[in-house]
């Protein structure tokens, strides 16, 4: 059996999600990785070092959903599995490719139970669905946060593929990136999240300073994003990013169902909130009742005192 993994990358950097996807699917068969897009030399190099990878295919060019579907549909004849992370690119293209090939995809997979059995959350994570597929090919998106990363040390060959004949009706005319020095939210080991109680964009700088101290990613609730305190790609929840860090520190977050759906995979939860009755305080492993504006500076000072370095 053979697997094609569509890698996520941005600005010349391979997404940490890809190593997790590769590790998750390595048991299904030999894995080839496709790097499609602009500025892919460095991420292709990174991909070639992942354990379990047989070959890295590169397709240089600007791809959007329709052209990426066209490119993938020419490649998929050779593979039993086509897999992407359940990020914006995977969500955009995998269902499109599936319909083109007359297949039902299985998306947002959180566990691979066998060669054709998969588990995925439904109803915002309030139920888990186990599905089996007897189709000739399996098109999957995986939640990277639910899987561990592949080791490195491999040196798989890198091979450029011909993309002539691939075209797109849609055109990308602008993109606005959020600049941040913190790690990738979807795959970070530690996430510090802020809610509406953080009160302002300036307040979020306090959240960021704790995140920097812990080498953590920064997350935000939908309400905090809607209020303009945080950029929308920081949003954690059913309609934002789904995270599964080892440690989640929720600051001024009461815990709306929407947000809880996004953090269900977190192993340990710490809550800092003024309201002892907040749902997130009740399900946290450790909760501290207090004013975040006093607690966070104290917490950073205490962590310094302990000598924590990350």
């Amino acid at each position, binding site marked *: 059996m053979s697997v094609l993994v569509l890698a*996520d990358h*941005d600005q010349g950097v391979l997404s940490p999600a890809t190593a997790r996807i590769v590790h998750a699917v390595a048991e299904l068969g030999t894995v080839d990785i496709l790097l499609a897009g602009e500025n892919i030399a460095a991420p292709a190099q990174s991909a070639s070092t992942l354990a379990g990878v047989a070959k890295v295919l590169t397709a240089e060019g600007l791809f*959007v*959903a*329709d052209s990426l*579907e066209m490119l993938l549909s020419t490649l998929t004849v050779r593979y039993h599995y086509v897999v992407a992370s359940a990020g*914006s*690119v995977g969500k955009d293209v995998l*269902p*499109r*490719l*599936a*319909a*083109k090939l*007359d*297949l*039902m*995809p299985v*998306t*947002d997979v959180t566990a691979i139970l066998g060669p054709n059995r998969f588990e995925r959350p*439904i109803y915002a*994570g*309030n*139920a*888990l*669905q*186990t*599905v089996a*597929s007897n189709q000739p090919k399996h098109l999957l998106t995986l939640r990277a946060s639910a899987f561990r990363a592949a080791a490195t040390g491999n040196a798989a060959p890198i091979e450029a593929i011909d993309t002539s004949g691939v075209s797109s*009706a*849609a*055109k990308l*005319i602008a*993109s*606005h*990136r*959020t600049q941040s020095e913190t790690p990738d939210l979807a795959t970070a*080991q*530690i996430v510090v999240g802020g809610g509406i109680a953080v009160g302002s964009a300036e307040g979020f700088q306090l959240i960021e300073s704790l995140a920097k101290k812990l080498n953590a990613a920064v997350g935000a609730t939908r309400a905090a994003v809607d209020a303009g305190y945080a950029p*929308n*790609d920081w949003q954690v929840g*059913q*309609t934002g990013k789904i995270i599964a860090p*080892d440690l989640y520190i929720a600051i001024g977050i009461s815990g709306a169902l929407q947000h809880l759906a996004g953090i*269900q995979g977190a192993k*340990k939860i*710490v809550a800092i909130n003024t309201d002892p009755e907040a749902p997130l*305080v009740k*399900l946290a*492993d*450790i*909760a*501290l009742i207090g004013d975040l504006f006093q607690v966070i500076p104290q*917490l950073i000072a*205490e*962590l310094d*005192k*302990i000598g*924590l370095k*990350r």
Partner: protein
Amino acid sequence: MKILVAVKRVVDHNVRIRVRPDGSGVETNGVRMSMNPFCKHAVEAAVQLAEAGQADEVVVVSIGPKPATDVILTALAMGAHRGILIETDAQLETLAIAKLLAKITAEENPGLVLLGKQAVDDDSNHVGQMLAALTGRPQATFASEIKVTGQGLEVSREVDTGRETLSLPLPAIVTADLRLNTPRNAALPQVMKARSKPLATRPAADFGVDLAPRLVVEKISPPPERVAGKSVGTVAELAAFIAADISQMEAL
């Protein structure tokens, strides 16, 4: 321009769902149902384009059992002009839904098809993309802004790295995200008026589409429960917990 909007009837998003003890599914008997929230954003976007004179007809289609008429009426009360119910009691997969919508798209030939980005029951996030593939049209998913330009559309969409803007020639498929707009609640006179708007009901079997499921749903189970932890009284205790947790994490 004609706009086709697809809407889905789902368990109301405010209802706390209950998994049936036998693992056969989620309890829907006696549970409040309503229009999928993302579909409401799609209807609102279509109605706003019509109000701005950029669309002349908004046709709303739903696929489901007879009671799905209710969500079509909701869309008509919001300002859509005409409704179509593709009636079936079967639980259809997204691929079958997309195929039925492709048939309606071929019949109606809209300049734009608007859908919600995902349904809050199966959370699939497939149908817009599948419809785009089946009709060979360009797509813009997770739309937070739609502008009609001379040649087509400019759609801003939310992606992992921030936001991006696509230009799409028409006809096109767009799926709505939460920031696209704030859906209106129709006032009673509009709700009454909606009942007199045209609404056609057509059996799904008449479309000549293979509706048989491709996947076998073996079981539906509740997620593992999280055990409640404890409260600490001081920041020092909290810092000690975080430091201990991090050193444990790094030891693995």
